[in-house]
């Protein structure tokens, strides 16, 4: 494609966007949001997969009613679709279907725990640092930079070293690192917001700092914070799976997807499904969450395109 073609193509797509934008202006905001969501095929696909996984995690164990820890030594290494074992069984004769469902549930619980922790703490810290500037900014900024610079897995291994293995240290460690990541972005947003005229006006009106933060700044940073948080849901799921894989996360008999992948890897040659089924579940979870995150970003806040990827170039 020649240089000129490229320029022309860019101009045309720009004009299309402009027309679409102007058309959208005549539609009420909520409807516009829904419309944009509907046009976003990846978001739809991601949400459908996500709802499926949510359903599997919440209702799967209830419907199948079996015990995830029950062992049966006649029924070891059964392939999927065997009699009584929809997804087969593992080396101890445990039902892989129910274990996968419970594993999905564990992933979802960890992701929810981590993300709510990180969202609340990250928004509060980021807002304090960005609003007050000065020493609180330097203190919070220093700690946040410090934590953010560490590899997630290393932090989690250290926490496991201090607190013992299990899901709790995993949630704390991943929550801490994600808090720092969210606080960094929120701080930047608040920093620019706090120099805008409407905040100045609020100061002039004599409102307290708390009220300005709560009523004027918070509503403006919620959308980007939520979008960002949806990325860190994927990070949390991957981290939990990786840590359970190396034995530091969920402890037996409680199943976790990463731990199931690890259990099955000695049988890869003959019975690959013991690893591949939980592995596919992890990939589907991560994929759906990432697509939802991408889609939400496009709908709510196109500006975040670079920051949210965790791409650490300036």
């Amino acid at each position, binding site marked *: 494609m020649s240089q000129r073609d490229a320029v022309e193509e860019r101009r045309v797509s720009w004009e299309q966007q402009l027309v679409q934008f102007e058309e959208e202006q005549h539609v009420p905001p909520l409807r516009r949001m829904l419309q944009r969501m509907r046009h976003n095929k990846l978001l739809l696909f991601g949400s459908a997969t996500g709802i499926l996984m949510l359903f599997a995690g919440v209702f799967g164990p209830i419907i199948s009613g079996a015990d995830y820890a029950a062992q049966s030594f006649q029924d070891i290494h059964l392939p999927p679709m065997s009699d009584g074992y929809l997804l087969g069984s593992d080396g101890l004769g445990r039902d892989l279907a129910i274990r996968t469902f419970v594993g999905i549930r564990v992933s979802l619980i960890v992701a929810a725990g981590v993300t709510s922790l990180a969202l609340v703490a990250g928004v509060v810290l980021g807002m304090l640092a960005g609003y007050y500037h000065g020493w609180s900014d330097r203190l919070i900024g220093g700690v946040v930079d*410090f934590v953010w610079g560490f590899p997630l897995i*290393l932090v989690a291994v250290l926490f496991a070293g*201090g*607190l*013992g293995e299990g899901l709790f240290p995993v949630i704390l460690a991943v929550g801490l690192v994600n808090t720092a990541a969210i606080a960094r972005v929120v701080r930047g947003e608040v920093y620019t917001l706090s120099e805008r005229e409407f905040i100045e006006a609020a100061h002039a009106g004599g409102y307290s700092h708390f009220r300005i933060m709560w009523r004027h700044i918070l509503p403006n940073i919620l959308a980007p914070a939520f979008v960002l948080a949806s990325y860190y849901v994927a990070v949390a799921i991957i981290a939990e799976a990786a840590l359970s*894989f190396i034995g*530091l996360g969920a402890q037996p008999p409680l199943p976790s997807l990463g731990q199931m992948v690890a259990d099955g890897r000695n049988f890869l040659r003959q019975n690959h499904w013991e690893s591949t089924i939980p592995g596919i579940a992890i990939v589907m979870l991560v994929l759906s969450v990432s697509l939802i995150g991408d889609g939400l970003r496009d709908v709510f806040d196109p500006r975040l395109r670079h920051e949210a990827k965790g791409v650490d170039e300036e």
Partner: protein
Amino acid sequence: MRRIAGRTIYTLIVLFVSSIAVFYAIRLSGGDAIAARLPASATVEQREAFRELIGLNDPIHEQYLNYIGGVLSGDLGKSLTNNADIFDMLLEHGLNSFILGATAFGLVFIIGVPLGMLAAVRRNSWVDSSVMTFAVGGMAIPNFWLALLAVWLFASTLGWLPSAGCCSPNQLILPAIVLAMEGIALTVRMTRSAMLENIEQDFVRTLRAGGLSEKRIVGKHVFRNALVPIISLAGLRIGQIIGYALVVEVIFGWPGLGQVLVNAVLRRDYPVAQFFSLVLITIVVLSNWLADVGYTVANPRLRKA
């Protein structure tokens, strides 16, 4: 210069604080370490005597000072599980980790930069979109899952490469590629966007007007400029590789620092866990510092600030 000095002081503070944090966290949980060392038949008095012997009963700040003194004078103590000298472990496993990490680090740039250039030069073509699909995939797939797929395909099914072990070149290939994958994906994206950004600059137009061939413009002038952020932020890749090495070394049975640390945590071998945490943290903090300095040197605008 002031910025670099500031970052250096900050880095030293960070190192100090994290050494305290690691020491306290792991030492406080060290009670179980006794059980790891003594036979189950040991009496209460014997356990107590052992605590006294290894200094667990001293005030904790004295323990810290003794420990740091020991580390600085090269006396690192012994492993609680197999009585191996920790300094010997560091040499042996450190070398293994260095081989794996350095290979992965090299792959990040040897594969990532040319692919990113290719995508930028052939932008909006099928080459570009397949390279970018690869890059997005590389960032989305958890690396332990990638490792397993690679073992399944290349070791179990095709039988081309060994699935685990150390340290022949054959055994190095799979773990190094898995370890490098996310860095490769990031580097591809960074290279592509940096190249595209530079292609639109005024100096490129001037060069074109001067009659330089497109090949020379892109291959020399644009490429050089695009390389600046990638090289200067290379330090960040080191930290990333260290984090993933913890998982990848365990999967491939590669006896490096990461595997030692994970095993020490699992077996409550706290002198080993403590020291190797400190080693890894130091490397991460220093490589972040390196990235900071590199970025400052490459960006004249930041030098004064």
